[in-house]
Every structure is written in structure tokens, then in C-alpha cells.
């Protein structure tokens, strides 16, 4: 039975190579748009992650903080579930950093009789807690310590990054679903054409007592092979577009292998699903 399905699926592809190529190309082009969008979404995500990694809460300490108080603060804050790491920056280190980072004010800093910069504790948060609510909560908790002068975390930036991320996610889902539906419709139509081209053969199969499952299998396999072909074409086109754009217009990262493999396999699965739907309709309509 499996031999029959494979043989018939291959024979069908050979009998009408034009239709098979048309189907695979249609699927490939739909998935290509999805692929381009995938590369863009992935790179947006990579960029946002890089920015997000820099989200930190800085607690500026009073000058009269004792070593014991600093230790209490460090121990307490380290134990917060939101906190990934914590770095103490002394007054001396703060000045050294300022001189390094603000080269043009070097003379101003070196001429000072006393160091006006406060010591601080830089708190880095775990990835899951980099949303505005968590960041604000950690900042509020740290601000409760009496020996903490001020707490800063760039509220606006955190809000914007978070909003951008959510927007990116929503757009990804909406466009992804839209293009997947387009791909399914195209595959469904092409498979339906293939089914109609072979309706007499299907009718004869039913006439002599073939089960629906037996009739369906070669078509499902044909749909999967065609879809997989479309997926491979989309992968090729997407990678070609990536090579053209990367470096010349903007620096991009290629998507992980699991994305590329998953996208190609999705083509096959879309072909399978669309064939199944087209055939179920045909078998139900034609008794």
C-alpha cells in the first residue's frame, strides 16, 4: 500500500510536471514573503534583545554609607528573584569611568578638589524581568533603603523597548497567519486542480471499492512533496535576498537553522494540510 502511494504520487508529479512546478512555485513565493518577514522579525528581535540586555537599575549611594550597610544592600538585592547580577561602583571607579567616557571633560574632572560623583550599585535584571513593571518594582524596592540617595533606570527607554517588542510580536503573528492562509489557499487551489484533473481515476477507485484513506494517501504525499519543494524554493530565495541585503544595505544575521528547517518543513505540512482539505471536500461532494 505504501509502495502504491509513493509510486502514484511520483507518477502524478511526472504526469503533470507543469502543474507541480506551478504549485511549488506558488507555495515558494508565498513562503518567500514569509521568509523575508521571518529574517526581518528575527533581526528586530536580536536588536531588541541587545538593547534589552542593557536595561539596568542604578542605585546611587549616600557618601556616608558604611561597609556593613553596603553589604546588607548587596546581599538583599542579590536575593531578589528579578536580579541577574549586581556590580558595586565605588566613587573612585565612578570618577575613572567618567574620565574615560567623557574625554573632553578630562581637565574639569582632574581639577576638582573633591570627587562629587556618588558610589553606586548597578543591578542587571534577568531577561524575563526586563518589562517596565518589573524594572519599576525593583527600583522602588531599592529606593526604600535609607542609604540609597537615588535610583535611575531610564523609564522611557524601558517602556519604548517593551512596546516595540510587543508590537513586533503582534505584527509577526498577524502577518505570519495572513501569509500562511495565503499559502494554504494557493496550495488548496492547485491541489484541487490536480484532484479535478484526476477525478475520473478517483471515481473509478471508488467504483471498485477503494477506501477513502487509500484514495487520499497518494494525493497527501503529492501535496507534501510539492509543499516541501515550495519550502526549499522559499529557503533558497530568502537566503539569496539575505545575501544581497546583508552588508550592502544593512548588517543582518541569518536566522537559526531551526527556523530555516522549520520553515521548509512548514511548506511540506501546508501542502499536506491543503491537499487533505481539498480532497476531503472532493470526496464528500462526489459521494
Amino acid at each position, binding site marked *: *500500500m505504501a509502495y502504491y502511494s509513493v509510486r502514484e504520487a511520483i507518477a502524478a508529479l511526472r504526469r503533470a510536471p507543469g502543474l507541480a512546478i506551478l504549485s511549488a512555485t506558488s507555495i515558494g513565493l508565498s513562503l518567500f514573503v514569509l521568509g523575508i518577514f521571518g529574517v526581518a522579525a528575527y533581526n528586530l528581535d536580536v536588536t531588541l534583545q541587545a538593547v534589552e540586555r542593557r536595561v539596568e537599575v542604578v542605585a546611587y549611594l549616600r557618601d556616608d554609607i558604611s561597609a556593613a550597610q553596603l553589604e546588607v544592600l548587596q546581599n538583599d538585592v542579590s536575593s531578589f528573584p528579578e536580579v541577574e547580577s549586581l556590580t558595586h561602583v565605588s566613587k573612585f571607579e565612578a570618577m575613572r569611568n567618567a574620565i574615560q567616557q567623557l574625554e573632553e571633560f578630562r581637565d574639569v574632572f582632574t581639577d576638582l578638589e573633591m570627587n562629587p560623583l556618588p558610589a553606586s550599585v548597578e543591578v542587571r535584571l534577568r531577561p524575563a524581568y526586563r518589562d517596565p513593571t518589573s524594572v519599576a518594582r525593583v527600583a522602588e524596592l531599592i529606593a526604600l533603603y535609607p542609604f540609597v540617595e537615588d535610583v535611575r533606570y531610564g523609564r522611557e527607554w524601558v517602556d519604548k523597548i517593551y512596546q516595540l517588542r510587543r508590537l513586533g510580536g503582534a505584527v509577526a503573528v498577524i502577518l505570519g497567519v495572513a501569509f500562511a492562509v495565503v499559502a494554504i489557499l494557493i496550495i488548496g487551489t492547485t491541489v484541487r486542480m490536480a484532484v479535478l484533473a484526476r477525478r*475520473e481515476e478517483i471515481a*473509478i477507485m471508488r467504483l*471498485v*471499492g477503494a477506501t477513502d484513506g*487509500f484514495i487520499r494517501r497518494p494525493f497527501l504525499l503529492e501535496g507534501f512533496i510539492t509543499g516541501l519543494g515550495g519550502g526549499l524554493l522559499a529557503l533558497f530565495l530568502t537566503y539569496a535576498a539575505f545575501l544581497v541585503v546583508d552588508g550592502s544595505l544593512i548588517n543582518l544575521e541569518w536566522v537559526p537553522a531551526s527556523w530555516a528547517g522549520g520553515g521548509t518543513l512548514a511548506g511540506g505540512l501546508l501542502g499536506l494540510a491543503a491537499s487533505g482539505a481539498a480532497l476531503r471536500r472532493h470526496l464528500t461532494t462526489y459521494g
Partner: protein
Amino acid sequence: MIKLINVYKEFPRSGLALKNASFHLRKGEFAFLTGPSGAGKTTVLQLIHMAERPTDGEVRVSGFSSGRMRRRDIPKLRRRVGMVFQNFRLLRDRTAAENLAFALEVTGARRSEMKAKVQRLLAHVGLAARAGAYPDELSGGEQQRIAIARALIHDPVVLLADEPMGNLDERAARSVFELMRDINASGTAVLMATHDVELVRRYSQYRVIELSEGAIVYDSGNSDGVL
């Protein structure tokens, strides 16, 4: 073996095709289903083949009932009920032998069994020498013989024939009809739809069920036609 019990069939567009039709076709019987075009002959055959379900009433075929039958049981029924048509319905891109083998293969037969069975059936319909010919290379009579061989491939209990000689010249028609009589003589019941009144008169020993406007208006009924 085949029973129609007070069967009505109504189609959404064309309306009532069959009205209160009842008859019993016994094992090994040969019967003509006659009547003018549109009388409901094809509808009766489709109901027996379960390509259609009755709007009311019941169709029983070799242990299967239209009322209780599930969709997945239909293939089992169709392996017990052979069917041939006026237009043969052969696959044009396959040879005569391949058309028969196809009917075996799609029902999951083992390849080793196929060849012997195909050869036997081709010989049975007198076309062993034409095994490699494509339908377009065969005459109408030969094509119908291949279609009959295909209908017999699962050793059915009944052969349904819908105007099987309608597209054939007189000589070919006679030869196909003789083949159907042979098949009946070997124990397979035959229900043949035809509007050829002359043929029905000539073979008056067989049962006649006559339809008019969807109703059975005459049934020679009894066991006269049982072999």
C-alpha cells in the same frame, strides 16, 4: 439478496426520481430494468451501489442496509457489487491489463495475486491477446468487455449494468450480452438497465422490472428468471 423496500428518492433540483419502489432480486437472478429515459433506472442502480441514499424507505444489498450503513462500509459493499456503464469508464492512460490490475491494487491486493487474476479475467472475457492494448486501441465492444472484467475483479454477487450496450453496434452488443449471460450462468446475479425493448422481448425468459416516471409499473417478478 437485493431488496428495495418502499424507496423514494428525491433530488434537490430535479425532484422526485423514484416513488415507492419495491422489489427483490434474488441470488443468481437475471433481470432487466426497463423504461424510457428519465424513468429512474440509473437512480435504482445508484441506490443499490450506495452512490445515493434513499430519501425514504430502505435498500438492502447482501447484508448491508442503506439505513444503517456508515460511509466507511461503502467500499466493502462495492467489492460485492460490480458495475458497468454505457461509456465504459476505463482509464485511457493504462492498458487493458493495467485497468484490471488497478482495480485490484486500489483495494490492497497483493501484487503476486494480481497478475494471475488479471490474466484469468482477460481470458474469461475473450481478450487475453489484447492485454497490452490501450482503451483507444480497442473497439467499443472490447472496451465494454474490459469494463465487465473489471467489475468482476472482486467476484461480486451481483453485476449492475447501466445501458451496457448503448454505445455498441449490433454485433458487439450481442457479444457483450452473451458475455453477461455467461456470467449469470456461473452464478452472479445481473441487473441490467436498458431501454432496448426488442432485446427484452427476445429474452422473455428473464425477469422484467419496468419503471415509468419513477414508479415500478410492471414486474414479472416471480422466480421465472432464476437460474
